[in-house]
């Protein structure tokens, strides 16, 4: 095999071979990589853990055998504890579903939460909510684990000493009564769209007219709103219709990923990209961005550009479209690319869309408004709505607070949510300033860095523990309903504020209910019940689009006033796909979910292009020192193919010092070099420290050596050769040496994954982890190749390592009809079900791992250690009771959520013994997929959606030539490039 380039793949008889590779080591085919690949199991995956010698092992075994004899005589007594008084409609053991709301960035997504006997166990999207449509993001899914975080803020603390709420009330009530007009009172609050919190805020500010209300969030959309302020003279929120757009150009906007607080853009975009017959068309996406994001991965044309050069691209685009010339002499080397994009956009005027990301300065957003006006997109694919009155940029508000604090004008500071000490720009030095405030009160879910410097640190309820509300992006009121009583002594933001300011309602339920009850139509009680059931208050008016014309003169002035890009290496700050801004730092699911592009787990890194790395003499894993202004932070380097040159990207939310046992000391703090001048990006310098830092990433694990695993083509090629994917590899007529199963009868389960719409966002990975009680193994175990995720999102780069394209390929057990794993199992622990599932009987498994060795897809996962051992009692509440928790020494893998199939089957039987309907069984991954790329169903039913998809020309099975006959098949990836740029 060394004579053949393993990365070269012939996708179709009539196309050029293409290089597919997953890491630079693989591309270079280094000895290290080959060694890794050719071991039966990844390095040291087969050895025992080093701190236990064989001898200790034998001693332990002898002891446990001895004890086993003593305990086996007595049958342990188990109790059944029924309720004293029954609860209406509650059936023990039957899950119940309630609607609630998850808020990120002040925007609500509707959820439907599965509760088992009073404890929430699984989060799904609310199908009735316009911004969820039945799906939930990886963050929303993982927020469940935050509820059961054993290191949460649990009790009121006064300077590190545990107190009671009564102690706080005794102190707070006279204190707040004596504040007079509140001249020296400040509220620092996590931004929220909650109307009920706004009502309590209104009350607080009328009681203390001298007080100030400051809102701050480290990842906000202020630049976009400020851009509208420039262009339209009023602050407006921008909304995009990705479904209606035939050509989209994104300027540093990861709208499919971390820059969108909801998953609606993914739904819209994937609807416009889905190709189910050769007559179908798909939209075209151009992306200009510094680092590789999931949006960039979906691009038909991607231009890597430093964040500071994006403005030049925007200005050149406007010029090419025949609009204003705002570029003063600056030129861009990408003239041809921009001209082609401009022509394409113009050809689809009114049905095109140009968008800019939250990291770009306001003037670029204003310029984009002009571009969309030039293209006639305003009111078509772009609309604007009003923001709440009195809007001011958060950073400006925070700077003002810092100045007030420095001048000693603040005597009482109330911080509601967030972690400003960790997330605020480092030049504001909030930690020291907070310490000087005589009375500082923090309400937070986490026992975090801010809690360390305030006088009173109070526990906040998790959103699944309390009543609340929030608005969706279009203003739809979304009710946040609790699933469980507060596990600890938490209070919600409005509850604490009501307590401090003597609001008319005290209980969170009353605060929320009274906010909406009066405005409900008809039978109010009935309407309120319906709102709780649906999760939304349907009768409330939605935000009306504002029609306005951008002022070219103002935009031009603002553009001219833009701060020029500095010299030196550009440093970019991004949300991280794991910890986001730090709120998921103590969440093991998010820490272990591989970052979609780098596949890095349990860390962040300085991403830089291969060329920049060469220029700096840096390799992946070198520890760098990054300096911006006077601030410095260490950060390991990671070479990211496709990154812009002379630029590095670092993600926030790591390097936490006080968050809990999972997140403490994980990664490095990018926030240490984030200043108010370089809030999103700025120029800095990079120096080598000479030290190395180990990074755990999953990109080389389970590689597949140059076979056509992913199959892709252009839309045009597909129109001429719709069955190209079937001819990528020659499948001879195959027969099996074993007795073949028959699959004619009953339901036969199968899955189709559409590579064309999959964006690789990790939502399925986390959903699967939550549904199937999959353990988290930690950084060290991931480095040994022992990660346990049942779904692996393979990310393949293709062609040029400096500017590659990306395809994401979800890979889980393919449920082969003639499965290679089954024939090698000596104890029949993995066998075939009559419905075509390749089953795992965990209790039969003796751990030979022959099956994993014989699996060509490398999708079997082995419990090398007792990974569930360290889970706390409260952590166990997150487990799904319908799925066994696997022990050490047992093999496991995807089983098509067999527990859901059984549940549906039993329900169908009880319901008059009818067959299971199409769509009645949804696997966890399918249910949550924001792009609806996964379809599961009965392939024996010719009318089912999956049967129709399997008949499509683009449908292919991976490694079919091995006669495994996989039940999971794929629809080939398509791209829609502009012929002018081909």
């Amino acid at each position, binding site marked *: 095999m060394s004579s053949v380039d393993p990365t070269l793949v012939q996708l179709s008889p009539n196309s050029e071979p293409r290089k597919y590779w997953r890491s630079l080591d693989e591309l270079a085919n280094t000895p290290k990589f080959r060694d890794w690949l050719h071991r039966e199991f990844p390095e040291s995956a087969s050895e025992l853990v080093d701190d236990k010698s064989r001898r200790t092992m034998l001693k332990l075994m002898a002891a446990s055998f001895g004890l086993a004899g003593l305990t086996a005589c007595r049958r342990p007594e188990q109790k059944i504890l029924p*309720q004293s008084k*029954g609860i209406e409609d509650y059936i023990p053991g*039957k899950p119940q579903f309630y609607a609630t709301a998850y808020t990120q960035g002040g925007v609500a997504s509707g959820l439907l939460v599965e509760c088992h006997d009073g404890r929430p166990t699984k989060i799904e999207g609310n199908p009735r909510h316009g911004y969820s449509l039945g799906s939930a993001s990886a963050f929303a899914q993982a927020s469940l684990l935050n509820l059961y975080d054993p290191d949460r803020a649990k009790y009121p603390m006064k300077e590190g000493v545990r107190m009671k709420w009564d102690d706080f009330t005794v102190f707070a009530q006279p204190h707040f009564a004596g504040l007079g007009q509140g001249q020296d009172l400040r509220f620092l609050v996590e931004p929220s769209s909650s109307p009920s919190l706004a009502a309590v805020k209104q009350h607080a500010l009328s009681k203390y007219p001298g007080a100030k209300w400051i809102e701050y969030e480290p990842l906000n959309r202020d630049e976009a709103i400020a851009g509208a302020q420039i262009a339209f003279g009023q602050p407006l929120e921008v909304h995009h219709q990705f479904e209606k757009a035939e050509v989209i150009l994104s300027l540093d906007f990861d709208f499919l990923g971390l820059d969108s607080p909801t998953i609606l853009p993914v739904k819209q975009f994937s609807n416009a990209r889905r190709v189910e017959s050769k007559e179908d068309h798909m939209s075209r996406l151009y992306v200009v961005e510094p680092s590789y994001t999931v949006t960039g991965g979906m691009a038909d044309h991607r231009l890597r550009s430093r964040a500071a050069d994006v403005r030049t691209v925007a200005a050149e685009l406007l010029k090419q479209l025949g609009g204003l010339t705002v570029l003063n002499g600056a030129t861009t080397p990408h003239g041809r690319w921009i001209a082609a994009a401009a022509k394409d956009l113009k050809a689809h005027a009114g049905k095109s869309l140009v968008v800019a990301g939250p990291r770009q300065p306001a003037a670029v957003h204003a310029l984009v408004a002009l571009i969309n006006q030039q293209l006639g997109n305003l009111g078509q694919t772009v609309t604007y709505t009003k923001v709440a009155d009195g809007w001011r940029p958060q950073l400006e508000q925070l700077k003002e607070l810092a100045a007030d604090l420095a001048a000693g004008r603040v005597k009482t500071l109330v911080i509601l949510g967030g972690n400003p000490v960790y997330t605020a720009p480092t030049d504001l030095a909030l930690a020291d300033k907070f310490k000087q405030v005589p009375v500082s009160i923090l309400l937070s879910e986490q026992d975090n860095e801010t809690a360390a410097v305030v006088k009173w640190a109070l526990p906040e309820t998790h959103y699944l523990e309390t009543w609340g509300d929030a608005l969706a992006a279009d203003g739809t009121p979304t009710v946040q309903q609790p699933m469980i009583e507060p596990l600890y002594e938490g209070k919600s933001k409005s509850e604490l504020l009501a307590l401090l300011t003597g609001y008319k309602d005290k209980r969170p339920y009353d605060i929320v209910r009274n906010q909406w009850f009066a405005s409900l139509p008809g039978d109010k009680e009935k309407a309120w019940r319906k709102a709780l059931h649906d999760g939304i208050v349907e009768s409330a008016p939605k935000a009306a689009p504002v029609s306005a014309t951008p002022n070219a003169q103002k935009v031009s002035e603002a553009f001219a006033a833009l701060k020029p890009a500095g010299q030196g290496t550009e440093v970019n700050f991004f949300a991280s796909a794991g910890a986001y801004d730090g709120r998921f730092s103590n969440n093991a699911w998010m820490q272990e979910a591989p970052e979609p592009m780098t596949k890095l787990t349990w860390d962040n890194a300085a991403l830089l292009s291969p060329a920049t790395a060469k220029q700096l003499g840096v390799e992946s894993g070198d520890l760098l020192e990054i300096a911006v202004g006077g601030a410095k932070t260490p950060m390991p380097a990671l070479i990211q193919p496709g990154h812009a040159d002379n630029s590095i990207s670092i993600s926030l939310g790591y390097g936490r010092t006080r968050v809990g046992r999972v997140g403490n000391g994980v990664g490095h703090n990018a926030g240490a070099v984030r200043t108010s001048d370089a809030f999103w990006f700025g120029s800095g310098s990079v120096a080598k420290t000479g030290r190395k830092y180990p990074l755990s990433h999953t990109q080389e694990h389970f590689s597949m050596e140059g076979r056509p695993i992913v199959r892709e083509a252009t839309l045009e090629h597909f129109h001429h050769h719709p069955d190209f994917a079937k001819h990528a590899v020659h499948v001879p007529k195959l027969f099996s040496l074993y007795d073949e199963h028959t699959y004619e009868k009953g339901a036969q389960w199968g899955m189709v994954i559409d590579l064309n719409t999959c964006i690789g966002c990790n939502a399925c990975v986390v959903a699967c982890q939550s549904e199937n009680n999959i353990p988290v193994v930690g950084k060290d175990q991931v480095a040994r190749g022992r990660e346990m995720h049942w779904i692996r999102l393979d990310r393949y780069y293709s062609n040029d390592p400096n500017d590659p394209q990306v395809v994401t390929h979800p890979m889980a057990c393919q449920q082969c009809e003639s499965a290679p794993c089954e024939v090698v199992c000596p104890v029949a622990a993995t066998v*075939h079900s009559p419905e075509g599932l390749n*089953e795992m009987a965990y209790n039969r498994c003796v751990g030979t791992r022959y099956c994993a060795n014989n699996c060509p897809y490398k999708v079997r996962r082995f419990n090398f250690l007792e990974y569930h051992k360290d889970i706390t009692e409260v952590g166990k509440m997150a487990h799904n009771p319908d799925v066994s928790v696997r022990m050490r020494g047992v093999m496991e893998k995807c089983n098509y959520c*067999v527990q859901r199939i059984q549940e549906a089957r039993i329900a169908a039987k009880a319901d008059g013994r009818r067959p299971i309907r199409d769509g009645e069984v949804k696997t966890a991954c399918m249910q949550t997929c924001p792009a609806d790329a996964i379809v599961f169903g009965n392939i024996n039913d010719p009318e089912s959606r999956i049967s129709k998809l399997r008949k499509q020309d683009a449908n292919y099975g991976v490694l079919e030539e091995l006669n495994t006959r996989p039940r999971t098949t794929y629809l080939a990836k398509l791209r829609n490039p502009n012929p002018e740029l081909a």
Partner: protein
Amino acid sequence: MSQLFPRLTDKVLRIALGVVGLMAVTGGGVAAYLLHPEQVDTGYTPKQPIAYSHKLHAGDLGIDCLYCHTSVDKAAFAAVPATETCMNCHDRVKPQHPEIIKIRESYATGNPIPWVKVHKLPDYAYFNHQAHVTAGVSCVSCHGRIDQMIEVKQVEPLSMAWCLNCHRNPAASIRPAELVTKLSWKPDRDPAEIGREIIAAKNIHPPTNCSGCHR
């Protein structure tokens, strides 16, 4: 050099090895027999916190199983009733009886009655009452004549082999679904024949593959 061991050694060793082997096999067999659920679990009759008699309630008074075990046809669990259910009658019936006072205490304080579980399956076996009861498997097939028990006793081994016996030959244990709680039901013809008719009519095919019960 003279021989270290006498000539007999070989023979002694062979016999000893045979004896040890025989003991191991016999010991293993005896252990396997004794530790089988049939020996270990059958007959388990724990002492309950309240001397509740199924014979009195279900047998003599003829209260239907479903009156208390309401979720048996709706969920995986048969569900032991809430104290409230007892109070439906015992609010007035024998309120001063010492055993009933325990019930009234639970009802007044809200503390659950700690019933001791009799029929236990391992955590990895996902038995579902709803599926069985709606198919027409009577309570008596697994729990025996509860209506004749003063103290509830496990009468069947509830081992996997025992489950599979019925899953492979269900006919004898299937009866019309409305009769599942009639523990004393005696058909006037061969019950297996009735079972076969119901199986054909309802298209019942109990799973015998792993994921039928283990997930």
